[in-house]
């Protein structure tokens, strides 16, 4: 199968390359980047040295492919979709540009009207654990926000079981790594300023909130994010109000039924050991989302803990997983790396 990556020099582009270079069904790979055109891909992704001698192509040199991944900065995919859409049968847009179903949400959360609202309905929100059946026949997929992915996958079983009190908000707190900001450096990412930070960079109004409310079909999610000393990883802690009393066994049943058969979601809640609840440390490079929960003994409230690698299950890995579903391949193809410990 032929795959093209548009915007292959960024961090998600680099992860797409790393994963697809080892994908059993991918026979031809194109890596397009305007800024790095002509250079070897390993000059932008040093982990790929001696792994490939692929070079970046300028956009206009792109040949047709079966699957096209758009790893462009937010706002560019919206404007330039026509340039790339025709390149391949399946188009996967990793940016936020086609994630939301209501065009009006873009005015609220992204501060500007969407230039092509009519297109939003053509895209399927590309998390297989949420929309596997739709993805099977989709021709246009959108990736998901990394923080949104962690919160959504954590809370989803409760939403589906209809046990959440819809009259009260879900409050979610994500601890995030610096790679979420992508390759662009700024004063705030200058090491002496960023190292050791425990920084509330988006206490309110974080864009991923829209996806959480959309996909959990919950009226109000109050989300805030804090950057911490970490490069890859998201740890989301969601405070979920329950509509009725539940005990631990009932919660285990809900999570087991939702995720036992999922290849990439692990329910992690253990009484002993060091890693009793999910944490991103052991997930770097893997496509796993770990989910755990703790029932509040004071009743009618559960705290859900979920963790991912924002560049893999929060971006590139999830999109390859969705591609596998859409192309009818084994859903885990190319995504076997289990992460490292310690």
């Amino acid at each position, binding site marked *: 199968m032929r795959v093209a990556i548009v915007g292959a020099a960024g961090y998600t582009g680099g992860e797409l390359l790393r994963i697809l270079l080892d994908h059993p069904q991918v026979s031809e790979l194109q890596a397009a980047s305007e800024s790095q055109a002509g250079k070897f891909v390993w000059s932008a992704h040093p982990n790929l040295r001696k792994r490939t001698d692929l070079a970046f192509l300028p956009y206009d040199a792109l040949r047709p492919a079966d699957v096209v991944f758009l790893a462009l900065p937010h706002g560019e995919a919206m404007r330039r979709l026509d340039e790339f859409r025709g390149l391949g049968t399946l188009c996967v847009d990793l940016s936020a540009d086609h994630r939301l179903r209501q065009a009006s949400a873009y005015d609220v959360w992204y501060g500007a009207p969407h230039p092509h609202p009519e297109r939003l309905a053509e895209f399927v929100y590309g998390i297989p654990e949420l929309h596997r059946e739709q993805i099977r026949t989709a021709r246009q997929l959108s990736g998901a926000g990394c923080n949104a992915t962690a919160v959504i996958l954590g809370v989803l079983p409760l939403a589906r079981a209809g046990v959440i009190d819809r009259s009260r908000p879900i409050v979610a707190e994500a601890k995030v790594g610096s790679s979420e900001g992508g390759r662009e450096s700024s004063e705030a990412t200058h090491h002496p300023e960023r190292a050791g930070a425990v920084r509330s960079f988006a206490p309110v109004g974080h864009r991923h909130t829209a996806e959480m409310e959309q996909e959990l079909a919950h009226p109000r999610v109050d989300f805030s994010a804090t950057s911490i000393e970490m490069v890859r990883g998201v740890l989301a802690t969601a405070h979920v109000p329950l509509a009725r009393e539940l005990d*631990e*066994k009932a919660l*285990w*049943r809900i999570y*087991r039924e939702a995720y036992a058969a999922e290849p990439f979601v692990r*329910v992690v*809640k*253990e*009484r*002993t*050991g060091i890693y009793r609840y999910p944490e991103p440390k052991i997930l770097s490079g893997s496509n796993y989302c770990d989910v755990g929960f703790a029932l509040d003994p004071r009743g009618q409230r559960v705290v859900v803990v979920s963790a991912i690698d924002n560049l893999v299950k929060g971006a590139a890995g999830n999109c390859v997983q969705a591609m596998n579903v859409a192309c009818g391949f084994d859903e885990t193809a190319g995504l076997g790396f289990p992460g490292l410990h310690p």
Partner: protein
Amino acid sequence: MASSCPECGANVGVGNKPMAGEIVQCPDCGTELEVKNLQPLELAVAPAEEEDWGE
């Protein structure tokens, strides 16, 4: 033979010749379980010293 984990309700296999007092681990929540009773098969959380995490 199998029984359900007292901690999380998972199905815990104990092999075909379990012995009373044998320790098995729950595949879902990792809790160590002791075979309390054979007919019917019954599992209880094995006594384990609760490590103090003390952050």
